[in-house]
């Protein structure tokens, strides 16, 4: 019994070696199979399987397989080159953005450092919305002031050219003479006269016109 069991183990090992290709199938034709039906059946099955595997027809690729594969490989290589170029461009763009961001960040980060180093300045107040609006308003005013001055300068030159020596406006004497009252409210008639005098004074051409007697 013990001898038979040992022989079965040895036969099992021989089966594995045959299946691994280390031994030929003929190595299973040992006396043990004559007395052990289990090992005999195992040997027959192994031999049948190996025979079946050897009888399998070889699998060959369809005709022209390589001819069809190579254009696909070349096309893929071109696509890969394009993808690589796009990746390089994107990486360069990303690097440029990062560099620009770092440069701006460093610049803005340097300003508070300078302020802090200055001993004369008081502690910087935290930014407030009202102060920001005030700064923005003054900036707008300073920007528009220049434009306004440029626009008004021709008109000023015009008035300067008209600023020739001219006779003083003749006070219009009304008879009877009206004593001006102490009240700041003046009669409408006087107001109209004054307006006319101012107009005549500013426009020198009208100064030579004969004065109408009121």
């Amino acid at each position, binding site marked *: 019994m013990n001898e038979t069991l040992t022989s079965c183990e040895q036969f099992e090992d021989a089966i594995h070696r045959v299946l691994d290709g280390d031994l030929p199938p003929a190595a299973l034709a040992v006396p043990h199979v004559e007395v052990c*039906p289990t090992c005999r059946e195992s040997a027959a099955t192994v031999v049948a399987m190996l025979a079946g595997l050897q009888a399998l027809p070889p699998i060959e690729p369809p005709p022209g397989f390589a001819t069809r594969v*190579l254009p696909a490989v070349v096309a*893929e290589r071109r696509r890969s080159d394009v993808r690589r170029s796009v990746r390089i461009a994107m990486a360069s763009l990303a690097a440029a953005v990062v560099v620009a961001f770092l440069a701006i960040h460093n610049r803005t980060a340097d300003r508070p450092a300078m302020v802090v180093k200055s001993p004369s300045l008081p502690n910087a107040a935290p930014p407030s919305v009202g102060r920001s609006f005030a700064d923005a308003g003054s900036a707008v005013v300073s920007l528009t002031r220049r434009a306004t001055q440029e626009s008004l300068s021709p008109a000023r030159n015009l008035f300067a050219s008209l600023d020739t020596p001219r006779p003083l406006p003749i006070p219009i004497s009304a008879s009877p003479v009206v004593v001006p009252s102490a009240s700041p409210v003046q009669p409408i008639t006087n107001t109209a006269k004054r307006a006319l005098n101012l107009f005549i004074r500013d426009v020198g051409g009208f100064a030579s016109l004969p004065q109408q007697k009121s």
Partner: protein
Amino acid sequence: MTADSDAELVSRCLLGESAAMRVLVERFQNDVFGVCVRLLRHSQDAEDVAQEVFVRVFRSLNRWDATRQLRPWILGITINRCRTAMAKRVRRPELVDHLNETASQKPEDDTHELTAEIRTAVDEMRADYREVFVLFHEHGQSYEEISATIDRPVGTIKTWLHRARTEILTRLKRRGLVPPTEPTPKKVPEHTLPVTG
């Protein structure tokens, strides 16, 4: 084919020589297409995946370690692409019927009942068992090469291969495809023969 010639071929391919690329495809197309057919069980799918394998091979050729063999490296890519294709099949159930139909027609081309049964057994095997069995018994790869191909320890490869073989042997026995195993009759000494008449 020696590893040196493979390395030389790869160098020429990396230089962009189309003739070398064709040689490489023709050198390994039987292995690649054979594994694809065995694992995918569909010739058209196998051709598509095999083409994809070579596209991947040429794309990654500059990463191949020249100190290792080229064939297991290419078969490793083949196994991976087949796994991906099989995973896609799971997500495309409408294709399964067609595949089963095609797979069931494949053994009919074989005249031998034994080979048909072996094929069916391999097709119905677990995927990792099938990979190991096909690589060992149909493509002659060693345990070490299979280990390098599918990136598993040699012990695992041996276990899977043993289980795959056991499945097939059991199937062949169950189907009665094993020839009868009667012990050879022993020669009986003449002096022990019973006297009749």
